[in-house]
């Protein structure tokens, strides 16, 4: 470990935050967190068929072991003073080229600790659940291998101490997510969804690359220590640019407007994947990125405003989409977008909101994983049916699933004392402190959330039964219900516990994120009451529409808004209109690609490039003489270019 990095980091942290110490003792074992699941992935993916029968146990064991390590580290961290909880664990120098040095080292502080616990904790539960869910899948070993790979990459993402190392994790989770969305490869829709997720994420990754490149220009390094220390003296224009690049990256990974379209399709993956990756952890990486980069956003007001706008737009958009979906997983996916919108909104509020963003992120991890696993349990009992119009009255058939789902439901719409109430309420308060419009957006979002979640609840578990006799709904095995119960319990106590226990999460994160108290324009009690009234109103409307009347088994045509929402508010159409030139050019290239029998589905921007590609390709005529002609013309151009430079 070189000392310059340490001194720089010390200089960085003393102004606002805490000093980073080089880890010793227990903390130097932090690398185990990543190594364990990585080992599991290696064993499972390279081990071959020998592990087919025991593979799932290996997968679970490594993640649970990682959770145990995390818990030990957490306790050890509690033993340290409040301002001395950040540790740097150097591993090895990755490379050092031309004065640009990247070291693979881990940063364990309060923020990453919170994430590590969430990832390994919820991850363990979902691994256990998957044992039951994937029992009859012949490729179960590979599934657990991918899941372990994901956990390792996600841990690297949150433990990195350098944006470039974070980028490795960032790409790693993208890869794992891509493999898992397309896991059921026999479904063409799954392959298409996987590819779409990948392409949209590439757009986000480009933001990440540009952000890192800009950091290299401005700070000469991409390590947290140097970058955050240098923000004070950096030009605001650059900081805003970096902030916007980071926001682009976050939008891609966290499915925020305008890169939201992939998340709904991603539901093609197995349900535990939706729960772990597309609800609890990976999609929240964008929020992590923004909170982690607090030092940049604090000094980049325009970028922060953009974060708020993106968050507010997405939270409404996701909620509206959630209202119109009949597919239970897609309804929940819309809800995930919307809830992450809340987190982004909070993160965009600066020091006043960072802690609440993380708070909501964690509680959301609990209850959304709970809801998704519940949905998976329903599907498991209903022969993989996902259309809520074919559900109804499942309460009696699946009591445990119903009970836990109901807890998740109460948590997400924010009924006290469930977890969501505390975290969401904090964000709405902070939003009102920021401005009336933002606050109203957040409040409205809460109402719509109550509406669509009540709708899901009523259509699935209550009302009249709409499934065919041969469906035989049944409760899932214990290996699936126990994780549900655990997550349900966390959804009940998680909110209050995190907020009040031992100073709460706000104090815990304060050394990393800073703190800022806001003054509310209206008394707190008024705000809380109006939030609750909005939520109840939303739920009541849903009950009027879906609880009192029987639900038709075929979706009615609906009004224009419903139609639009069913089509994801035309997210794909907008993307296509923006990115590709409509008209014959496109059609021709598509028809051509299809007729060639090669997987011709090209998404978004690639379509325009594809058209260009087929046209340019025709230059390759196969005739030597025309090649010679291009060469001669090229030679002429080169010579002319050389001569022209001297002319002026």
């Amino acid at each position: 470990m070189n000392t310059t990095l340490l001194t720089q980091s010390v200089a960085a942290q003393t102004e606002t935050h805490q000093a980073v110490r080089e880890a010793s003792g227990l903390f130097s074992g932090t690398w185990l967190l990543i190594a364990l699941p990585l080992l599991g992935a290696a064993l499972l993916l390279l081990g071959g068929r020998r592990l087919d029968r025991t593979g799932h146990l290996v997968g679970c064991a490594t993640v649970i072991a990682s959770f145990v390590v995390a818990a030990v580290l957490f306790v050890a961290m509690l033993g340290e003073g409040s301002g001395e909880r950040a540790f740097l664990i150097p591993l090895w120098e990755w490379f050092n080229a031309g004065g640009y040095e990247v070291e693979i080292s881990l940063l364990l502080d309060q923020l990453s600790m919170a994430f590590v616990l969430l990832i390994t904790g919820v991850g363990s539960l979902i691994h256990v659940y998957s044992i039951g869910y994937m029992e009859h899948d012949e490729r179960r070993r590979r599934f657990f291998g991918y899941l372990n790979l994901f956990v390792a990459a996600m841990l690297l993402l949150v433990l990195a101490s350098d944006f470039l190392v974070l980028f490795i994790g960032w790409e790693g989770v993208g890869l794992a997510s891509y493999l898992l969305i397309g896991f059921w490869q026999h479904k063409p829709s799954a392959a298409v969804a996987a590819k779409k997720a990948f392409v949209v994420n590439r757009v986000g990754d480009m933001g990440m690359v540009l952000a890192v490149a800009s950091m290299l220009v401005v700070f000469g390094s991409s390590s947290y220590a140097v970058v955050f220390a240098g923000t004070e003296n950096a030009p605001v224009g650059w900081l805003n640019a970096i902030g916007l690049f980071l926001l682009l990256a976050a939008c891609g990974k966290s499915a925020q407007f305008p890169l939201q379209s992939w998340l709904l399709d991603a539901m093609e993956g197995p349900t535990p994947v939706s729960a772990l990756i597309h609800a609890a952890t990976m999609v929240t990486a964008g929020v992590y990125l923004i909170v982690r980069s607090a030092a940049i956003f604090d000094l980049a007001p325009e970028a922060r405003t953009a974060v708020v706008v993106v968050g507010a737009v997405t939270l409404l958009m996701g909620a509206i989409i959630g209202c119109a979906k009949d597919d239970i997983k897609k309804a929940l996916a819309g809800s995930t977008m919307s809830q992450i919108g809340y987190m982004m909104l909070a993160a965009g509020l600066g020091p006043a909101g960072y802690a609440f963003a993380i708070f909501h992120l964690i509680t959301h991890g609990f209850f959304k994983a709970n809801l998704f696993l519940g949905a998976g349990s329903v599907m498991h009992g209903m022969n993989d049916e996902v259309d809520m119009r074919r559900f109804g009255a499942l309460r009696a058939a699946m009591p445990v699933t119903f009970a836990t789902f109901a807890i998740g439901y109460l948590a997400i719409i924010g009924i006290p004392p469930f977890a969501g109430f505390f975290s969401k309420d904090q964000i709405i308060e902070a939003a009102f402190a920021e401005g009336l419009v933002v606050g109203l957006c957040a409040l409205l979002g809460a109402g719509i959330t109550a509406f669509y979640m009540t709708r899901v609840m009523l259509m699935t578990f209550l009302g009249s039964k709409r499934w065919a006799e041969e469906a035989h709904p049944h409760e899932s095995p214990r290996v699936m219900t126990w994780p549900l119960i655990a997550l349900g319990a966390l959804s009940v106590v998680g909110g209050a516990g995190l907020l009040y226990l031992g100073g709460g999460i706000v104090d815990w994160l304060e050394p990393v994120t800073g703190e800022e108290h806001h003054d509310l324009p209206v008394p707190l009690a008024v705000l809380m009451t109006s939030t609750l009234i909005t939520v109840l109103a939303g739920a009541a409307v849903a009950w009027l529409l879906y609880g009192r009347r029987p639900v038709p088994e075929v979706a009615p045509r609906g009004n224009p808004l419903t139609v639009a929402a069913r089509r994801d508010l035309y997210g794909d159409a907008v993307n296509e209109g923006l990115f590709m030139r409509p008209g014959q050019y496109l059609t021709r290239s598509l028809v051509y690609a299809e007729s060639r029998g090669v997987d011709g589905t090209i998404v978004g921007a690639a379509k325009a490039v594809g058209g260009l590609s087929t046209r340019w390709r025709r230059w390759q005529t196969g005739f030597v003489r025309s090649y010679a002609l291009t060469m001669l013309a090229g030679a002429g151009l080169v010579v002319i270019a050389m001569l022209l430079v001297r002319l002026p």
Partner: protein
Amino acid sequence: MNPTSYLVLATILFTLGSGGVLLRRNALVAFMSVELMLNAANLAFVAFARMHGALDGQIVAFFVMIIAAAEVVIGLAIIVMIFRTRRSASVDDASLLKL
């Protein structure tokens, strides 16, 4: 010595050569045109060597001739091989590789 006229001649030869590569369909003739380009370079080298009063340009001319000879051997081998296979020495007939 003023090399201008030699240079003009060399350039004419070079242009003829490169034009020949483009215009002639017969691989042998196209190949002869390439040799013409090399000879144009030789002429320029010798002319410049005279201008500078040095010998190294003339040595280059020797080497270029040798290399041209080696190129001829390789080129003839390839072209003869193709001719025997296809019964045609047209460069345009050899256009299976494309797109």
